[in-house]
């Protein structure tokens, strides 16, 4: 186990290092810099001296390799750089926004599981009946309706027919006002959870169908267990492995920021931070957010691997 952990750790470090270089290069290869992002076409009105003064101010006058190593050196000391636009250090800025995205992601996953797993089980148990058909239609809908459409529709219906709109640029956090916080997050979470629920439903359905034909399910039934115990204790647990993988991957994506949903519902999460950082060419902020997303993915994949062992004790990482 220890050997496995060490291997994973070094592989992760290597991945992180590679991705920081990739992001660093990519954002600089995109035309435009902080000066044109700030000034737009007015950047052309600057004299050469004025432009040089601004490049010094933004640290753009130094060679890119030097910029990268200065940044990397900072990272090892917990300093991800400084956002001039926001007038703050990158790390606290990201940490401020992260809880919004975490909460939103957890809610979205919960909603997806609550909808997806029961429908998936029902669909599998009542295969080729009208229940299965409804379930499959639901999953097709979820996969084909894009987030921006669903989000906009929800906002439209809420504001026009109910005269309410909890999200109007006044986000409050969970500890300030839990009720308003939930009101603000539930609709974006439904928006995000809906399409994921479809994937969960499909995955649960196909895994259940497979497991229901296994010998141990037949044995369980033969032992005289109730159908309920057979399904929940024996079949479901074993069909959850692919679902857990799915949750892991999806959670990683969600934590990387729900760019569109956060934008439509004006939630100050990581996704919106990243969009603004990219359009404003805030290099340090883009790099910081990318680093966070990579760390998330690595951690979540690791946790998922550990959870496999818990769900299915036959899986072991000891060599």
């Amino acid at each position, binding site marked *: 186990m220890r050997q496995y952990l060490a291997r994973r750790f070094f592989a992760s470090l290597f991945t992180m290092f590679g991705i920081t270089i990739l992001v660093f290069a990519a954002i600089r290869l995109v*035309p435009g810099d902080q000066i*044109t992002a700030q*000034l737009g*076409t007015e950047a052309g009105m600057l004299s050469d001296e*004025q432009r040089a003064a601004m490049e010094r101010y933004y640290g753009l006058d130094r060679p890119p390799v030097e910029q990268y190593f200065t940044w990397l050196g900072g990272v090892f000391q917990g300093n991800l750089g400084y956002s001039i*636009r926001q007038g703050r250090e990158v790390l606290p800025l990201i940490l401020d926004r992260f809880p919004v995205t975490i909460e939103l992601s957890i809610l979205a996953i919960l*909603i997806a*599981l609550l909808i997806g797993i029961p429908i998936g089980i029902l669909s599998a148990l009542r295969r080729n009946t009208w229940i299965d058909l409804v379930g499959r239609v639901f999953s097709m809908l979820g996969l084909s309706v894009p987030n921006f459409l669903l989000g906009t529709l929800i906002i439209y219906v809420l504001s026009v027919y109910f005269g309410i709109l909890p999200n109007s*640029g006044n986000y409050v956090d969970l500890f300030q006002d839990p009720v308003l916080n939930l009101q603000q997050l539930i609709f974006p979470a439904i928006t995000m959870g809906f399409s994921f629920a479809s994937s969960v439903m499909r995955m649960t359905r196909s895994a259940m169908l497979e497991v229901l034909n296994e010998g141990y399910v037949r044995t369980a039934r033969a032992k005289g267990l109730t159908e309920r115990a057979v399904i929940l204790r024996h079949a479901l647990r074993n069909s959850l492995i692919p679902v857990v993988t799915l949750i892991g991957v999806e959670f990683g994506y969600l934590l990387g920021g729900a760019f569109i949903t956060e934008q439509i519902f*004006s939630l100050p999460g990581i996704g919106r931070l990243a969009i603004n950082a990219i359009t404003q060419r805030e290099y340090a902020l883009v790099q910081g957010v990318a680093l966070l997303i990579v760390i998330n993915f690595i951690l979540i994949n690791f946790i998922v691997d550990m959870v496999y062992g818990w769900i299915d004790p036959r899986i072991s990482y000891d060599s």
Partner: protein
Amino acid sequence: MFTKKLFALAILILVLSLGGAALAQDGGNTLILARAVDATGLDPHTQTAFSSLRLLELIYEPLVTLDSDLSLQPGLATAWAFSEDGMTLTMNLREGVKFHDGSDFTAEDVIASFNRLLAEETASAARTNYLSIVSMDAPDDYTVVFNLNTADVPLLAAMASFNAAILSADVIANEDPALVTVGTGPFKLDSWTPEETTLLSANADWWGEGPFVDGIEIRIIPDETSILAALRAGTVDFALLNDPLVATLLIDDQSVVLHRVPSLSYNVLQLRAAIEPLDKLEVRQAISCAVNRQEIVDSAALGEGRIVGPLTMASFALPTDELFCYEQDVERARELMAAAGMSEGFTLPVMLANAEPPVAASIAQVIASQLAEINITVEIEALEFSVYVDRWLVGDFTAAVALNGGRTDPYTMYSRYWQVDARFQPTAGYLDDTLDSLMKAGQVETDFEARYQIFADFQRHLAETSPWVWLYAPYGYTAHLPSVSGWEPSANDSLYYLYNVSINR
């Protein structure tokens, strides 16, 4: 068991979420304003984005301001006069004005502010508008004399820009104005959380009448449809909108008051006459004749725009029927193409910025269908805004759909394009002696009638030589709940007059 608990938790969350219906806004006497784009910074001397100016004009003030008809009004200066030869400009300053930090406003602050604006290291893109100032004197605390190196009539209009806002000399000397926001304006900045919320409180010591609200809370809602929804749900009082496709949804809405004002900015098809075959006068004229401007406004912008010539300000704009080929004339366009030996047509690459303005792609598509009539095949290149700006600045394009900002003075509006050594000459892509000499004459002429004639000739000449094809001026939109009163929108989209607004919930 676990599933049951989870289910119960979910139900609880749903009930909590939907239960509290008391969601309508009650901001007390604070105006809640929503807009899609936030300021990019707080230093009035260096900010150029409209989104920044919309915030800074609530906090800072220039020496002179513009009313809703764009005529000059006293601001921090109460009176002004050019000398006979136009080489000095004397301004009398308002007495009893205090900065937000409590210090007095005097001539020293004016001189420090203009010195900062003119210094190269400040990197102010607006600096070129004030280069005629060689020195400043303060005979007393409330008089400033600007000594100029040439008669510069447009200087006064340039001083009405919030880029020429007056900062405290003390802040300039000891602080960074990008971080320390001390103005004289009707509102004080309490906090700015970029891309989220800006809190302003009323300046009780302001010299004018007002403000009539306790403060303003500016919320950034990145999606304009969501702004519309917030307004309809009553969770915001006041909204700034850009997209005509969104704003027009409010036209018949009784629960919201919509204002629309033709703006000074203009949509234009920029041609680069330096590139073949656009170097042929007849080809450019043919494009101008083949374009149907009204159709562009109707199809791309749902009729939301005013067809304009090169000058958009009411005081100088010529009626468009006095300009070359402003009515579509496809026959004439074909003849012109034939005269240029281009009857077979050619391919014209047209670049545009995605969503800047929101209707850019639609404009390009309508133009493409119109130019197809004279065998010109338009190839549309849609670019991300920064990429577009980079290429626009160096003139790396054949044609471009652009939304360019307007100014209240014709010289200030076009001196960057149509003069020898103008900074945007590569972008403009065309110059002739007539344009250059008309611009030079327009800068120094002090008599309004004579100046009007100069710029009338200037507009006719531009339309006739068609280096660009001017299309229409979009509308600027503001919308508010009926409980908000006293708002008067201005053609330069300024929010300065929010000090007049009151709320009756």
